[in-house]
């Protein structure tokens, strides 16, 4: 059975890259691949929320991390996903050197561009994922 692939973004509020990770998850799940992806909250997963864990367990998932601590990837790895695809905003920004993202609650124009570039990379992963779940 096809399932929406869970996308777990960084939830940090200290840096613009975390905000860009979050915005990228929304762009992916609402604009680019609304039929294939859905946002799942990292804290619910890590705190063991049953509904959130059910979304993730037994299938592929996408982590979008804002910094090198990779909290989203680590959280997903402990939540029963069969494969965790990593998208790192700090790598994406290196590939788009002209961008200077700023803001947390409200990203500036470059921050939004970075989020879009990150979401585009994540969309390719979603398109190439099987969408299969062992829990179906």
């Amino acid at each position: 059975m096809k399932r929406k692939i869970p996308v777990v973004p960084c939830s940090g509020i200290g840096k613009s890259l975390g905000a860009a990770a979050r915005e990228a998850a929304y762009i992916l799940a609402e604009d680019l691949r609304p039929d294939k992806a859905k946002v799942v909250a990292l804290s619910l997963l890590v705190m063991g929320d049953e509904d959130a864990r059910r979304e993730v367990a037994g299938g592929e998932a996408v982590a979008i991390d804002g910094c090198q601590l990779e909290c989203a990837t680590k959280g997903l790895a402990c939540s029963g996903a069969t494969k965790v695809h990593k998208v790192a905003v700090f790598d994406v920004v290196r590939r788009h050197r002209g961008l200077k993202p700023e803001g947390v609650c409200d990203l500036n124009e470059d921050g939004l561009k970075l989020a879009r570039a990150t979401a585009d990379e994540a969309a390719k992963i979603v398109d190439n994922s099987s969408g299969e779940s062992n829990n179906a």
Partner: protein
Amino acid sequence: MPDLPRKKVGLISCSGEEMPEGTVTRRAVRRVLDTLRPDDTVTLCLPLFLAGGEGERAFARYYPTIAVDGCDKRCAALATEKYSAKPAASIIVTEIAKKCGCGQIGTARRLSAEGLRLAGEVAGKIAAKTDRLLKKKPKGVPRGVGGGER
């Protein structure tokens, strides 16, 4: 005992990315950090806290914290208690929303004007609790703190 900075309050906001109340918590906390009580507060990153960030966990063991949760699942409060110490104060956005009679607050991605107003209400409550924890005379919160901030 590590060399710690002067007494501050740690703010831990919900990471509920799938619900608008989570967005309200993040906006409210940023408002306090950036504008209302910049000298008295720091943010503790909930995901880092959960992923084992020792600096975050140590801070919450030695300093007062305020957990700001979007819903009654209270991930921020429970995580703080589980990994460090019970938060000195706890705020739940859905409860404040009921009390202040907020209408539709928008989406997780984009808060409506009501959502921004609610974020302002929450920010005011965080600032008041910060003052209480630091035993400071309340400084008050500027009028119109909720709408169109930043």
